């Protein structure tokens, strides 16, 4: 049972990582993901609120160490992203009431490939969803995804609202989810 609890139950994954998101700071990681096939640098939100565009170019940098990224946070509250090639969205002076969206890079995960859409208001994540997913269509993958993905989406939001720095519990699929989410946030300059 231990083995199983390590690989599966334990697979409670990088939920921690998710919680970095509420903490998104101005400087972004040089984050490595599978380059998206559709790196459209302009995405729009169609979700009711003010719609603006994000013109940040894709900032994911393919590297040979795709699971590691470093976020260096300036200790002073400057807003310039100092350490990456990230170009901040040119919708300058965007008040915090304006919603912006981006689609993260397509990322390989255990069962296939997925990408994540994120919508933010100011620097707050207000919506997270799967932009695209290809899990090979087999039953087991799909049933796990059906469980895991809503949970992942919800936990990102819950983490923001509950002011927490991690989640204890089981989930799957989260590594890829979290990588793509990070890249979407990077596109938004967050």
């Amino acid at each position, binding site marked *: 049972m231990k083995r199983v609890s390590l690989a599966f139950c334990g697979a409670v994954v990088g939920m921690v990582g998710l919680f970095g998101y509420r903490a998104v700071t101005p400087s972004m990681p040089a984050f490595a993901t599978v380059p998206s096939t559709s790196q459209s640098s302009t995405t729009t939100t169609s979700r009711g609120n003010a719609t603006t565009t994000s013109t940040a170019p894709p900032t994911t940098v393919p590297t040979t160490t795709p699971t590691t990224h470093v976020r260096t*946070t300036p200790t002073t509250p400057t807003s310039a992203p100092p350490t990456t090639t990230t170009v901040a969205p040119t919708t300058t002076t965007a008040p915090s009431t304006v919603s912006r969206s981006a689609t993260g890079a397509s990322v390989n995960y255990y069962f296939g490939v997925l990408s994540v859409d994120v919508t933010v208001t100011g*620097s707050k994540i207000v919506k997270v969803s799967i932009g695209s997913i290809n899990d090979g269509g087999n039953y087991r993958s799909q049933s796990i995804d059906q469980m895991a993905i809503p949970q992942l989406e919800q936990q990102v939001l819950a983490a923001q609202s509950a002011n927490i720095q991690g989640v204890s519990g089981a989930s799957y699929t989260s590594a890829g989810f979290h990588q793509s989410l990070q890249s979407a946030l990077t596109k938004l300059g967050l």
Partner: protein
Amino acid sequence: MSSTETRSLHSFHRDVEVMGTVITIDLYGGDARDEVITIRCVDAAELALQQADEIFSTWKAQSPLSRLRRGDLSLVEVPDEVLEVLDACRSARRASEGWFDPWSMPGGVDPTGLVKGWAAERALNELKGLDLSGAVVNAAGDIASFGGPDAGQAFRFGVVRPDSPLKLACVVESPGAVATSGTYQRGNHLVNPFTGEATSTVSATVAGPELGLADALATALAVAGPAGMGFIDALEHYEGLVIEATGKYVKSQGFRLVENLLD
């Protein structure tokens, strides 16, 4: 992005793909000028995790643990880490009154229920020399930490609600380590060491100072169910929470829910 209201003291994040999952390392506070030292320490933490995987993987046929289980290695030939972990397993078996028992596994001794927490705790130790307000190593939901997001604050961790995975069951203030074990999502995979039968408890969380033991105790508590609160209450510094399939929950006397979303 120009908004500052959500600015936090989160200063560093890394994902480590290891042990068949992703383990995340997050640092809070500290001085960005120490970047070189920070990366060096995080590298050491990552290495500790990778080494633990090399030694203890039951999936890798040539890992020392796999060889021990097959009888290719004797206890005098295994790395010191194996002896250390087996020693911790004996302590956990005692502390859990037998509900955690790596020696009852088919296929030979299997300390996996403790190893992930033990490894995360080792990784965390590599970060203690840094000037930080706190650090978190989250080994796929089993969390080791010290300090907090800011001076004088404790980390707050959510516990997933097993009967409704879209929600958190509660939020706890971290005493250092928080581990959750359970039967949800993947179906039942925990076995009662006394009867050999599968168990019905849905989710068990243990919070305490050290993650190796907390991890093992969470496994034990998930197997024992509410009846396991006896051994949890008998332990100093460790607290437990069992959530059953119905959403009903039982907690040890000292388990404090900062936010209770169950009632």
